[in-house]
């Protein structure tokens, strides 16, 4: 990974104040991003630095553009007819909209977990192995190793190790979502994008996902969209507040939730609207 300065190691893992001495390094730098669905402007002039090996939460009312923003980070919006991005999204300094960027390679580096768990109707093993197989890895040994490692990382291994050939759709909702996380981790991404990964889960499963995110952030840069203020406050170091397609405020989570600079941010995080 070129362009990744070694200062990452100096940055404290839990940044609750902007007053730390060494500036944290940015994994993804978004500059003047405008995003259109056909004629509709969905994101207006967004500047955003996603900090390396930290959890960044995106909050805001429904339809504010936070999911759209998340999906521009691995160009999943390419799939949407008529969608168009302007501006720069730099991953380790390289513009992901550049002409020689291989979008499949980009998505292997910037993985994604969706709101609704979406394992393939295949076995648990084949779900995790999917990304490796499409990357052209055929060595069964390598695949077995990666399956186990990914399932361990996703805290699912102990629950499914005796049932790897069982169907993924027979797992519980929370297990399915962790399987999707394992599947995303198997291709060894640097960044993990999560679109309300726990919104469809019960509190216990949600707790497990949050613990998992806590464990993962030492190794991965995580961006998570959430509707749950407490969740954003619990798990993230940085928070960005979106409203009507604009990034209203972005900063350390503690600051956003305690002393926001903007009135609209305060109104939202205290539950006065949204």
């Amino acid at each position, binding site marked *: 990974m070129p362009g990744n300065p070694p200062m990452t190691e100096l940055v404290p893992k839990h940044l609750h104040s902007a007053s730390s001495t060494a500036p944290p390094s940015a994994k993804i730098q978004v500059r003047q991003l405008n995003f259109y669905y056909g004629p509709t402007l969905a994101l207006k002039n967004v500047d955003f630095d996603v900090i390396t090996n930290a959890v960044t939460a995106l909050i805001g009312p429904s339809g504010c553009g936070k999911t759209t923003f998340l999906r521009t980070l691995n160009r*999943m919006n390419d*799939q949407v007819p008529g969608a168009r991005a302007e501006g720069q999204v730099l991953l380790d300094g390289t513009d992901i909209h550049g002409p020689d960027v291989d979008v*499949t390679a980009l*998505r*292997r580096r910037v*993985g994604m977990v*969706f709101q609704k768990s*979406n394992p393939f109707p295949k076995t648990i093993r084949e779900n995790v192995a999917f990304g490796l197989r*499409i990357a052209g890895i055929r060595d069964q040994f390598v695949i077995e190793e990666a399956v186990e490692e990914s399932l361990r990382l996703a805290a699912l291994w102990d629950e499914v190790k005796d049932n790897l050939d069982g169907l993924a*759709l027979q797992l519980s909702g929370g297990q399915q979502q962790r399987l999707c996380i394992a599947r995303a981790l198997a291709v060894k991404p640097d960044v993990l994008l999560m679109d309300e990964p726990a919104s469809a889960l019960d509190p216990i499963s949600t707790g497990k996902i949050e613990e998992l995110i806590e464990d993962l952030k030492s190794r991965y840069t995580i961006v998570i969209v959430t509707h749950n203020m407490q969740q954003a406050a619990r798990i993230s170091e940085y928070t960005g507040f979106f409203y009507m397609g604009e990034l209203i405020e972005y900063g350390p989570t503690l600051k956003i939730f305690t002393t926001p600079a903007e009135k609209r941010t305060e109104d939202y995080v205290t539950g006065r609207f949204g």
Partner: protein
Amino acid sequence: MTHVSTDSAIISDLSPTDAGGVSLAAPILSGRKSRLLRKLSLLPILTGILTLCVVLMLVIILWNIVAGGIGGLTWEFLTANPTEGMTKGGIFPAIFGTVFLVILMTIFAIPVGVATAIFLRYYAKPDSRMARLVRVAVNNLAGVPSIVFGLFGLGFFVQFVGRGIDKAFYGGGLAFGQPAIIWASLTLAVLTLPVVIVTTEEAMRAIPRDYIEASYALGATRWQTIWRVVIPNSLSGILTGGILAVSRGAGEVAPIMFTGAAYYLPYLPAKLNDQFMELGYHVYVLSTQSPDVEKTLPLLYSTVLVLLLLTFALNALAVLIRMRLRMRYAG
């Protein structure tokens, strides 16, 4: 699922006049009530009677065929050649020819049909001129009378492609430039293509968008997504399309009568350019071309019964597969 939504659409279409129809409700409550009610109750009776007519027709046809054909349905009938000017013996060559024909047809129709469905759904822009053109072509293909396919097959496959092959590879000798099972099966494949395309596209539409997104998010290319997610998840649909195509193709006579079906053959087709006997065509032959139609009548009944059983069995199989497909995505 489509049925439910259609029904509810109809209900919602009607409900405004029912619910908001204060003007309608008033006369019902007044003196004209009985006349209106009589009118209304006449409709279910009328439609019921007409429905009964349809069912009755089907029962009469089936009863007639089963009663007339079941007696002649022996092991010998299924396994022997026709003898004595087709007034005795069996229909084995026709059964064999039918099976051979539809297998060949499937081999041609399924890859082309699936490829067309993939193109329409995943490569063509949904409303592009090209996609619309293909859709119009497919819909029109489904509406072309089958005798036209027969003449098309004769003109295009036999006389143009077949003769062309003969000129190029056989020095003008007669090998492929004559009616043969390959031309008949290709003609049938063109005829049944719309069925395969439509059922495959329907199956692909049923695949949850989530699967496709998951695949792309893991770095899959479009083709990898099609090959590893779309096709495996629409296999039952493709299979259903294949079976519906077979059950449609197995009963067609017009497309094959000029392109390869034979009146009688002392041998079974073994090469692609052999002619063949076929059940539907055999029925036609027995009922119109035999020197003594009276004598062939029992054989005719049994042949029709075999053809019907074959078609019904294939349709039942298609329904079963489709039910399993629905159940899989219901949960």
